[in-house]
């Protein structure tokens, strides 16, 4: 499938004529920079930035410089995005106080932060990587009190550690009250019978070693015992969201897990030992490396690349940035242009970015994303949204509807004027180039030539070329 799809893209790319633009001119009447003249950079923006805004191509940075800047997100000027976030009361509230808001408000503001980040944050690579962590450590707002706790999960567990060490990221996730709720860890107690296996199983299967990573049902049961006793306070209790260890609910006996002995009486320390063991397990590096490669390279990534990314994770003591460097500088990454199908969040964000739309995420935009089946923190099961074309390609009709509504200027969250956009871009051919990140093929141009500018833009955003990245 991959080889075939590559051949398809190659055939449709055709010649890439040189395009000139004046960099550094200000204001809205500035002619749009061209695109497609640096395929490697276009690919990087398509995969690691939810596509390009016209202005993104003004940068004088090389591919390598862009990657390094993005890997140091704190050095990027993101004031515009940060100021947009200030309006969200719940995003700025301490975790325990989130319970004072209506569930719907907390939920909507968190989803808005995610959507706004994908469209507007200058920390492009971090936003695309966060999408992976949201799937890897999937939470569903519908379960228990997750709706009140996921804000802190995103803000305090995922964002600070996105490019950090895997051990720290896992540590922040494992005992976060949202995850203790989601995987029933808070109810895992050994004093009333057999411990609840749910969290231990998903920790091994999804968060660390991966299915087939060399653990057994006995290991699941041993870790369930090891994790017993941790709990989180909820609605109706004082100090809501506080995570604590209750020794009386913990199984203090010795355990054998994954070939290691956990001696009796470790108490609250035991969870740290568990984290050390699962993080150091070679299957964990491989499992996470594969996730990274699926996200950024291909649905079925080359095994050799996965091994190299896993090796850099292990050699760097689990440094996620180091693994990303290996991945983004690989020939496998460069050669994967156009092989992935955009997921709906990517589709929506890249459509808005290509058209330079400014948006205030409102209920309309979140509702569209929900209809496309990709609202943040809404996948019902702990395996996270699938990251493959086989899952998402059944939803083309929804994308066509979205493109049509948006191109006609009828989407309240981001109203655009297709005719003005076309003029600003310098014609339909140039607009198509900005959307696709490459020159449109003759067949594409023929389709885009029909109808008025809004119909042409709808066709560009609905075309198969725009669904790929």
């Amino acid at each position, binding site marked *: 499938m991959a080889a075939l799809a590559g051949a*398809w893209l190659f055939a449709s790319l055709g010649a890439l004529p040189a395009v000139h633009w004046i960099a550094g001119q200000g204001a809205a009447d500035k002619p749009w920079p061209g695109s497609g003249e640096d395929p490697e950079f276009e690919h990087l923006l398509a995969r690691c930035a939810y596509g390009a805004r016209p202005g993104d191509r003004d940068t004088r940075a090389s591919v390598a410089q862009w990657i390094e800047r993005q890997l140091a997100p704190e050095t990027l000027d993101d004031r515009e995005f940060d100021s947009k976030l200030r309006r969200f009361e719940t995003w700025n509230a301490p975790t325990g106080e989130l319970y004072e808001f209506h569930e719907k408000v907390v939920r909507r503001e968190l989803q808005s932060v995610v959507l706004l980040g994908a469209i507007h944050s200058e920390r492009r690579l971090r936003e695309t990587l966060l999408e992976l962590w949201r799937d890897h450590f999937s939470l569903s707002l519908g379960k228990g009190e997750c709706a009140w706790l996921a804000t802190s999960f995103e803000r305090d567990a995922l964002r600070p550690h996105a490019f950090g060490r895997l051990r720290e990221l896992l540590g922040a996730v494992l005992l976060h009250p949202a995850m203790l709720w989601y995987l029933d860890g808070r109810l895992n107690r050994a004093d009333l019978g057999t411990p609840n296996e749910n969290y231990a199983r998903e920790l091994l299967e999804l968060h660390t070693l991966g299915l087939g990573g060399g653990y057994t049902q006995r290991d699941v049961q041993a870790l369930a015992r090891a994790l017993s006793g941790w709990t989180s306070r909820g609605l109706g209790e004082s100090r809501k969201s506080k995570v604590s260890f209750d020794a009386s609910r913990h199984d203090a006996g010795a355990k054998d897990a994954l070939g290691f002995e956990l001696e009796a009486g470790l108490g609250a320390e035991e969870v740290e030992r568990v984290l050390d063991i699962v993080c150091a397990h070679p299957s964990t590096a491989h499992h996470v490396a594969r996730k990274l490669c699926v996200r950024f390279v291909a649905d079925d990534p080359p095994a050799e690349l996965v091994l190299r990314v896993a090796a850099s994770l292990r050699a760097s003591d689990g440094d996620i940035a180091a693994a990303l460097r290996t991945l983004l500088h690989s020939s496998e990454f460069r050669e994967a242009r156009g092989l992935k199908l955009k997921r709906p969040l990517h589709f929506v964000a890249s459509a808005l970015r290509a058209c330079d739309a400014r948006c205030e995420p409102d209920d309309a935009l979140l509702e569209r994303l929900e209809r496309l089946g990709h609202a943040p923190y809404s996948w019902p099961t702990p395996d996270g949204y699938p990251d493959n*074309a086989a899952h998402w390609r059944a939803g*083309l009709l929804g994308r066509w509807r979205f493109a049509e509504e948006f191109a006609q200027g009828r989407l309240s969250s981001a109203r655009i004027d297709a005719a003005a956009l076309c003029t600003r871009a310098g014609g339909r051919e140039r607009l198509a180039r900005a959307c696709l990140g490459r020159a449109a093929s003759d067949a*594409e141009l023929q389709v885009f030539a029909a109808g008025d500018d809004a119909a042409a833009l709808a066709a560009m955003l609905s075309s198969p070329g725009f669904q790929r990245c």
Partner: protein
Amino acid sequence: MLNETLVTIFLRGGADGLALAPAVGDPDYHRARPLNGVKAGRGEKLDHLFALAPELSALAPLWREGKLAVVVDAASSDDTRSHFAAQPLLERGGSDGAGGWIARYATARGGVLPAMAFGDSLPEGLRGGAPAMALRDLSDLDPGPRVFELSERLSGLYEADPLLAQSAANTRMALEQLRQLATAPYRPADGVQWGREAFAQQLAQTARLIKAGARPAAVCIDLHGWDSHVAQAQLLAPLLLELGQGLANFALDLGALFETTSVVVYTEFGRRVAVNSALGTDHGHGFTMFVLGGGVRGGVHQRWRGLSNDSLLGPGDLPGSIDYRSALAPVVERHGVPARDVFGELEFVLPI
């Protein structure tokens, strides 16, 4: 007369077979479920061992008419106890490669309409080349004239894209065939009151398609939420009600057309017999299936060996004494599709 539409209902999350059809006649069942079990004498009695969950009482009339088959302790070859391995394994139905048993069945069955799945994507069971599409609601199929025109204008570009060609073609096929139907008013049969939940609505829309003469080879519906690690009795009660009420309404709304429709209810695995410390149950093995519709021979199908420790598997799970495909094989045969073409050679077939 051959059956036409096969409706598969997947209880996602691993539905506890002993919650669907508790073994109220087995003393070991009451020992394993002292607090959250079903008391003897409650629920429609199925045989000397089993009863229907009390929340499934809406199915009692179908059971008494011999239109409901209950398969106890069915299983796939799953030994991972992982949702995400066991679900696709079940849906592939024994094939080594990708692609599901429902897709193989639908390909063999043919027809002018694509097979359908309610949701945002095709389930694994419907992947692998059969004409199929996913939709949330029938009204999706009437997106307005401009989108319809857009889909036609783009058809050439999509045909040339190997990754997306078939999805685009299936979408256009469904739009062309069902656009009018999607907006026509619908009145269910007398006595049917469809609930507002997604599951009820999807069954209602399936009934509506069938009654309008649009009979896709397969319709796939998911009912989520069966992963009952915590407070199982409270968690499952509303789901069981939704399931029983939905199936009963479906049969009633279809009337005579139910005789040429098949319904299969299954799940990826059953659950541990013993409860955990949170009054839930953890992932297990053998599960319970329901088969309903035209030509079904009602009754309980079981090879029960009890719940003593030596008849359980691994950490204390039902052993999975019946290959679930042996219950599906006669169903696809009633649709005119040789079971061999869907499941390969099976060792035995249930008389179901």
